[in-house]
C-alpha cells in the first residue's frame, strides 16, 4: 500500500493533500509565511531511516533539505563559515556532517575516534577555531569533551567531561569557560539507549577552562535521578538548564523540578513553582532557549505538549504555550521572537516579550518531522 507514496510522506498527509486539492475547499499542504529576514531556521528532521535529514526554512518556505541517512540532534552554525552548519548525530552516532546551507551539499564528514561516539551536542571556541563536542569513551563509560580543528576537523585534544553521559554544552560569553551538562546516565551502543547505571547515576553541571579543560566548578541537583541535559547561556553568563527525570529509578512520586538557572557565582536555582507547571512538564524538558532582550528563558516539554517561560531574574512563571510534541526552541533576533517547532512540521512564533503568538506566521510543513532542536542562524550569510 505504501509503494505509491513518497517515503518521506505519511499516508494521512498525502490524502489530506489529495482531498484538499480535488474535492474540498483549497487546503494547501504548506502554508508558508516568515521568516522574512535572511535568518535560516535549521533543524534535524525525519522519522524513519530513509527520510532523516537536515531541513531549513528561509523566506517563508522550506529553503532546503539535505538527506543525511541518520538521525541528527543539535545543529551548530560554523562561526568561520556562516553558510555552513555542523549536523551532530543523535547518540550514539559516530558521524557528524558539515553541510553548506547555500547549496545543500555535505562538505565534510566528521567521524568519532575509535571507542568514542557523539552525544549530539557541541559548541565552538570564542575565536571559532575549535569545535568542541560531547562524546563517550565507550569502553570506560566516561564522558569526554573532544576538541577538533574547525577547518580540518583534525583531532586536537580530548578532555574529561567530569561526569558520565555529557549531553549539551556551550561556551560562556567570557570566551574562557565552557559549561557542560553531564546527564549522568551511562549508555553503550551495544545495548542501545538503555540506561545502565540508574542506581548510581549522578548528573552535574560542570564549568571547564576552555583552554586547558580543567574543572573550574561543578554543581548538582538534590534529586539523584534528575539528569541535567540541555542548557542555554545568557549574555550575562547565566545558564538556563533543563532536566529529565528517570522516574522509574526514583522510588517515589514526588514532583521533581525540571527547570532552572545558574548565575555566575551563585548556587543552582530550580524553578519549582507553580507545581501545576512542574506536573505538566511530565518529568521531561527537552530544550531551552534564552531571549536576552526580554530576560525570559523558554523550556519545552514534548511529553507535556507545552513550552513554559520563566523570568530569569525573578524565577517567576511568565507564561506558557501549548503545542503537541513541541521540542525545537530557538530565539529569532530578526523577528524578536521565540520560535518553536514540533514533529508534525509546525513552526510557531511567539513575541519574546509579550509571549503572544503571531498566528499569521504559523508555518506547517506536513512532510517534515522536526526533531528535538532548532538552530536559528545568524543573519550574516548571503541571501
Amino acid at each position, binding site marked *: *500500500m505504501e509503494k*505509491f507514496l513518497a517515503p518521506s510522506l*505519511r*499516508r*494521512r498527509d*498525502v*490524502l*489530506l493533500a*489529495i*482531498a484538499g486539492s*480535488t*474535492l474540498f475547499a483549497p487546503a494547501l499542504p504548506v502554508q508558508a509565511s516568515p521568516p522574512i529576514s535572511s535568518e535560516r531556521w535549521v533543524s534535524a528532521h525525519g*522519522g524513519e531511516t530513509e527520510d532523516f535529514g537536515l531541513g531549513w526554512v528561509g523566506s517563508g518556505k522550506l529553503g532546503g533539505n539535505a538527506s543525511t541517512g541518520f538521525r541528527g*540532534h543539535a545543529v551548530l552554525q560554523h562561526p568561520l563559515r556562516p553558510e555552513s552548519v555542523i549536523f551532530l548525530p*543523535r*547518540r550514539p552516532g559516530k558521524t557528524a556532517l558539515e553541510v553548506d546551507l547555500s547549496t545543500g551539499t555535505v562538505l565534510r564528514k566528521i567521524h568519532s575516534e575509535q571507542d568514542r561516539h557523539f552525544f*549530539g551536542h557541541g559548541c565552538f571556541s570564542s575565536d571559532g577555531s575549535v569545535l568542541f563536542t560531547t562524546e563517550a569513551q565507550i569502553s570506560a563509560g566516561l564522558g569526554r569533551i573532544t576538541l577538533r580543528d574547525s577547518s580540518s576537523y583534525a583531532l586536537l585534544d580530548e578532555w574529561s567531561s567530569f561526569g558520565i553521559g555529557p*549531553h549539551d554544552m556551550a561556551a560562556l560569553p567570557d570566551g574562557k569557560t565552557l559549561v557542560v551538562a553531564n546527564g549522568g546516565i551511562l549508555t553503550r551502543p551495544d545495548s542501545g539507549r538503555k540506561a545502565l547505571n540508574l542506581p548510581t547515576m549522578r548528573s552535574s553541571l560542570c564549568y571547564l577552562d576552555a583552554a586547558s579543560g580543567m574543572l573550574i566548578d561543578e554543581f548538582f541537583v538534590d534529586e539523584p535521578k534528575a539528569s541535567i*541535559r540541555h542548557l542555554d547561556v545568557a549574555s550575562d553568563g547565566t545558564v538556563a538548564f533543563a532536566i*529529565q527525570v528517570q522516574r522509574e529509578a526514583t522510588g517515589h*512520586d514526588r*514532583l521533581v523540578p525540571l527547570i532552572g538557572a545558574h548565575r555566575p557565582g551563585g548556587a543552582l536555582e530550580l524553578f519549582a513553582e*507553580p507545581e*501545576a*507547571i512542574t*506536573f*505538566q512538564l511530565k518529568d*521531561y524538558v*527537552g530544550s531551552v532557549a534564552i531571549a536576552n532582550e526580554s530576560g525570559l528563558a523558554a523550556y519545552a516539554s*514534548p*511529553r507535556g*505538549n*507545552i513550552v513554559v517561560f520563566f523570568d530569569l531574574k525573578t524565577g517567576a512563571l511568565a507564561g*506558557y504555550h*501549548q*503545542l*503537541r*510534541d*513541541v*521540542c525545537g526552541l530557538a530565539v529569532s533576533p530578526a523577528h524578536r521572537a521565540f520560535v518553536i517547532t*514540533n*514533529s*508534525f512540521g*509546525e513552526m510557531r512564533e511567539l513575541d519574546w516579550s509579550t509571549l503572544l503568538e503571531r498566528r499569521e506566521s504559523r508555518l506547517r510543513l506536513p512532510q517534515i*518531522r522536526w*526533531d*528535538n532542536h532548532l538552530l536559528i542562524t545568524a543573519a550574516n550569510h548571503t541571501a
Partner: protein
Amino acid sequence: MHRPLKNNSLSRVLFSRSPALLLLISLFACVDSGGDSSEQRVEVVNEAAALQAAIDESVDSAIVPAVQDFLRNAQELRASAETFCSTNSETNLLAIQERWRTLFQQWYRLSLYNFGPLNDDIIFPTFTFIDSLRLRGTNYLATVRAEIENDIAIDDPLTDEYYARKTFNRVGLLAVESVVFETSTPEHSNEPVDILAEFDAQPRKCQVLIGLIRQLESRAEQVESGWLTQFKDSELPYRTLFLDGQLEDGTDPIGQLLIASQEFLDYLQARNVVTTAAQVSMFSWEAITATVDEVELLLRGASPASNSIFDVMVATGNQNAVAAVEDSIVQVRQAIADRDPAMLEITLGFLDGNFKREIPDSLEVDLGINFSDGD
C-alpha cells in the same frame, strides 16, 4: 461506478455502514479511473474517511453522552440531597448514597476523556475540582474531613460563593462521599444510624452537603457547556473544534483521544486507584468496571451498526491488534471479578500498552517522535 476495492473487509465495513462514505468512495474513483494508483488512492481515502466516521461516532455516541450523563447524575444527586434534607430518613440517606455511587461510576466513564472542557486550564483544571485524586494521586480524605468538620462548626453562611472559593482538594466527589457515607466525628462511622443522627444533630451538615453538590453540579454544567455551547473564548463548542481538528495545541482528534485514554489507564495503575479511591464508600471496583465499559464503548461503538475504531482496525487488516485489545479487556475484567489489585494493575498495563502501540499503529496515528523518543 466506483472501482472494486482491493480490501474486502474494508468494503464490507464502509458499504454496510455509511452511505456518506460510499459516496466518497465513488467520487474519488471517478476523479481518477486509471491504473493501480487510483485503486490505491481509493483505498487510502476510504481509510481516512472511515477513521473520521469512527471519531464522529466516538464523540456523539460515547463522549458527549458521558458528559451529559455526568451532568444529569449530578443534578439527580442534588435533587436527592434536597429530598433527604427535607425528610431525614434512612431510606432517603440510602437513596442519596446510591445517587453518589451512580455519579461516581459516571465520572469513571467520563474520566477517559480528560481533555478540552475537563482539562481547560494548566493551573486550575476543572477535573481537579471534581476528582482531586486524579491530579497526582494524592488522597485528600483527611483534608476534606477537616474541612467538613470546620464548616459545620463555624458560623459563616455556607453559600455557593463560599464553596466556589474553596480549593480543589476541599471539594468534589471525595468531599461529598465523606458527607454521605460517614460521620464527621473522629470515629467516622459508616453506620446509617450514626450518619442520620449527625444530620439530625447538626443542621449545618445538610448545608455542607448541598453546597458541595451544587459545586459539583456547577462543574458538570461547565463541562457540558464547553462541549456543546462554547469552549473558553473560542465562540465555538469544543465538539466542533474537536471534530474539525481545530484544537489549540494542534493535536489531531484521534491522537487526543488515544493519549487521553492511555493517560487515564496509566493513572489507574500508577496510583493504585482501586485501593485509594472511594475507600469510604468501598466502591472503587465498580468505578473501574465503568471505565472498562467506557473503553469498550469507545472502541466497539454504541451498536453493531456504528462506525467504530475496531471496525477501522479490522478493515485495515489489523484483526490481530483488535484481538490483543479484546484479550486485555477480558483480563482486566477477570482481575476485577477476582478483586485482585495486583492483577488489575498488571492487566491495566496491558490495556494501556494497547493504547500506546496496537491501536495507534493500526490507525497509523502519529503521536510524535519527541513525545515517544526524546533525548
